[in-house]
């Protein structure tokens, strides 16, 4: 049980830390969302889906812009995964047999780039990975969430 005294101490500490770091508090949900604001959020997401779609289908210019090389064999992700089928983003994280390890979707994307496609591993937190992830999730967005399923 946390006492009233301790709550007060905690509040003071947080306030000091916040001031000490010069942090600006951001209130994300204090005002009602306007329709154009929601549309802007959607636009940001769909732009990532579009870029991911182009990468997934082997578009050379998009790879060049993002400084990635996803394949050295001429193969693109979509050649084995039309409509992003068989990517199963809704089943990650899980034990991934090919890697013999517990893996995330991002781990699997890099495995496919390096092994079947013989391309160059991409930054797991970089823009190309986020775009690929956006496209794969969007394509499978109506699938049933089922993490861990083999």
């Amino acid at each position, binding site marked *: 049980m946390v006492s009233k005294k301790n709550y007060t101490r905690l509040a003071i500490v947080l306030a000091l830390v916040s001031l000490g770091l010069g942090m600006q508090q951001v209130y994300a949900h204090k005002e009602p969302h306007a329709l154009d604001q929601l549309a802007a959020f959607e636009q940001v997401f*769909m732009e990532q*889906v*579009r870029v991911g*779609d*182009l990468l*997934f*289908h082997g*578009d050379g210019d998009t790879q060049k812009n993002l400084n990635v090389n996803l394949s050295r*064999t*001429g*193969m693109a992700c*979509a*050649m*084995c*995964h*039309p*409509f*992003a*089928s*068989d990517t*199963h983003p*809704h*089943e990650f994280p899980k034990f991934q047999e*090919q890697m013999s390890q517990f893996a995330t979707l991002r781990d699997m994307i890099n495995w*496919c780039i390096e*092994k*079947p496609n013989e391309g160059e591993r991409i930054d797991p937190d970089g823009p190309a990975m986020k775009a690929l992830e956006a496209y794969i999730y*969007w*394509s*499978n*967005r*109506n*699938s*049933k969430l*089922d993490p861990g*399923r*083999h």
Partner: protein
Amino acid sequence: MNERKLLQLEMDRTLRPEGERPSSTTVMTRRTFLHKSLCYGAAGAATYALLPLINTMDVAFAADGQSFRFAWLSDTHLYPKSLNTRFVDKMVRAVKEIQGMNPPADFLIFGGDLAQLGDPVELKLGAELLGEIKIKKHFIPGEHDWYLDMGKTWSKMFGAPPWTFDHKGVRFIGLDTVSHGPDYWTARKMTPQERMGHMATLDGSVAGPWAGLGSEQLKWLNSTLSSWGKDKPVIIFSHNPLYEYYPQWNFWVRDWREVHEILKPYSNVTNIHGHTHQALYNEIGKLRSIGMLATSWPWPYAPEGVPVLTRPMIRADPGDHFDAVGWSSLAVSGMARVEYEYMMWRKEVFATAPVDSGTEDNRNQILSPRIADRL
């Protein structure tokens, strides 16, 4: 109910009237053999592996009990050697095995998609590799062979379908299901490479539902069959399946209604097709339809429309490019049966448990078409 489901229902109503089945004189049995042979991997190390996928059909209808065998090879999707030797390696292996058939096959059917992007370099490489097969060869094109120069190089090198010949009591027909696609390139002022690129994208939306026979070829098919007995055996080769499986990936021909109207009076028709890169089996009215594997890579089963009569193949291992691919050997015998046999380079063809099945694997999957080529 979406448009695709309505189409599927229409196909069922039109083509599967109650009690309608392929001729009872041809009975399909399936066998799966596992062999061990030496396989040389990319690094040159000798490893034991399974022989390739072979689809063997013992067909009921050869005249006077004569047995014969023919081979099917398709969907090699060759790139220039400088870019990709993986597909070359697999085609070389299939070619050697076809040439090594004992007794030899009477002929080879090449079922389309020799090249990946229709490049003359790719087509010439394919012709060079196929030159190692010394038996008679018959060719039908795939869309990847055609849309760079609208079939000019292909037709010059391999001739233009449709064609027909009779062999030991069977009428064989080769169709062109790829060259009659609607013009999506002129108004958009596409280069030949851009036109080919859209056609080469299975899940693209720009080329649309391009697969079909076209009115002239339908007339030709009708006329070619009219001189053949209604109960005599016919084997039709096409790149795309002659029924509606999944139009978004052109796993169909758009004029399937007309095709089946023409085939309706004939009781002994088997369609052998490529393009789908997977084990497939279907019966539509009196027509039996069998999908062959690619040597290049396997496609996943489509999210909808897999024929209920199909026994799904095992899910492919993406880490092994010799898995779930192969060529086909088809045998025609005087016995009243049809047999085909799948043999894979790596695994047994069919899954023994749902968890290993190429369709069960996707039971929670609901997909959306791509968008980047529509924006």
